[in-house]
């Protein structure tokens, strides 16, 4: 009965998408399992992520704070994965600054992510063996309104003489304002977002940029955990599958064969 309903009412025009989603997921899951058996995947160097250490080093040397923001996103919808990826990077950053005793300021715009951020930072200080260095005043909700948040961050960057500014997560129209204000305040800057319209602004105003999907790979890359790295390899496998579809589809389209094009209409 239920099966009948599903078969008949399988939402129209999404068969191709569902098929590809299943294939991609299966490929990624297989690679994750393979890595558990000790197959350590190789990943090329990602300069912008490696630069995070450089930024922390500089803030430490100068004895000035490091500012981290996962952006204006929350846990709902389009911005959710970017916020999550940003928080994942924050965990690694917090562990390093805990070791070096560099002051850390984290700002954000969605109140519901505050508990998670506090939790992540606290645990990172604990993991680094320095729980006493955790400063709750560094975790700052600024405002729910986009440009009020921007105004607050810009103020903090200047007043607290931030030495390193890490913007990793979801950003919209405020990206250029925060990034350029950070530059004027003399901070070394790393920008990362998967909001395509905002990447150019990070490219012009930041020292290092994680372009689009590198944001999602950053947490896994920093963890150096083979299982997580396998997920990045999984991204590459899916990328190759997609490229193969594209090339084959275009070649067939050239000769007027619409086999693959028809599949994507299903």
């Amino acid at each position: 009965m239920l099966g009948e309903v599903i078969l008949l009412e399988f939402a129209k025009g999404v068969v191709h998408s569902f098929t590809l989603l299943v294939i991609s997921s299966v490929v990624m899951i297989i690679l994750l399992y393979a890595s558990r058996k000790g197959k350590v995947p190789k990943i090329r160097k990602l300069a912008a992520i490696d630069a995070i250490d450089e930024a922390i080093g500089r803030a430490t040397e100068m004895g000035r704070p490091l500012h981290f923001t996962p952006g204006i996103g929350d846990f709902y919808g389009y911005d959710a994965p970017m916020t999550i990826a940003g928080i994942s990077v924050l965990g690694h950053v917090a562990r390093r600054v805990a070791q070096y005793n560099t002051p850390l300021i984290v700002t954000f715009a969605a109140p519901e992510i505050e508990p998670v951020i506090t939790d992540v930072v606290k645990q990172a200080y604990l993991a680094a063996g320095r729980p006493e260095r955790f400063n709750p005043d560094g975790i700052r909700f600024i405002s729910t309104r986009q440009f009020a948040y921007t105004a607050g961050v810009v103020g903090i960057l200047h007043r607290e003489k931030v030495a390193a500014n890490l913007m990793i997560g979801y950003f919209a129209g405020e990206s250029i304002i925060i990034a350029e204000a950070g530059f004027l305040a003399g901070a070394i800057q790393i920008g990362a977002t998967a909001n395509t319209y905002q990447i150019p602004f990070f490219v012009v105003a930041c020292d290092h940029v994680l372009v689009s999907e590198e944001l999602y790979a950053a947490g896994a890359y920093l963890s150096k955990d083979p299982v997580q790295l396998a997920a990045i390899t999984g991204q590459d496998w899916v990328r190759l599958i997609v490229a193969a579809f594209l090339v084959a589809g275009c070649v067939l389209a050239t000769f007027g064969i619409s086999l693959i094009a028809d599949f994507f209409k299903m």
Partner: protein
Amino acid sequence: MIGLDAKLLGIILSGGLTLMAYSFLYRENRVSRIAEHIYLGAATGYGAVLSGKYVYDNAAVPLAKGNALWAIPLLSSLLLYFYFSKKHFWLYRLPTAAIIGVGTGIVVAADFRTRLTEQIKATLLPLFIVNKPYETINNLIIIFGVVGALIFFYFSKELKGPTRGLADFGKYILMVTFGASFGQTFMARISLIIGRVQSLYVWPASLLLPLAAILVAVAFVWDRRKQGKPRVSTG
């Protein structure tokens, strides 16, 4: 009469706040700081009121009408406030996990289609069209641009040989994309400045313009004398 005065006051207030915020462009200062904090308080307070209204309209009203199911989100979201408890801190994770589950579930399913498969579909173009050299070239740029830029992000190893060449082509396509996107947005942002300047030209806000100019000039002379060298960008 009172209505008119309120209107004039509004014009002065919004003009004044605009100029206070703009004073940041000279440097971070007490005036811009005050505007910043007025803004933070006002915007956050306003947001809280709207959130309150949302909760009231969408959960409290149905609950009062007897739809008891709405008690679930209301009560479970109170668990978020265990964030302030030292002992049962972790309880905040339950509602957060629910928010994240629904929040990412929605986007993963929909975006996989609109951002991946629909894009593949749109890129299935013929590599060669007879007697249409212009379209052929455009198609080739789009197809090799998409494939090249996808390959450019290849994480598993450094690329060599022909794939390297393809990735390089992708890199240039990405650079052109970023440049074009920057150039295209500039006009929209200038439109915003135009909007602000127009609001400053309205009487009596226009009275504030010469005042602001004098203040900036004074600050400039003051800074020069204190030999606070103006910040300089690096080449």
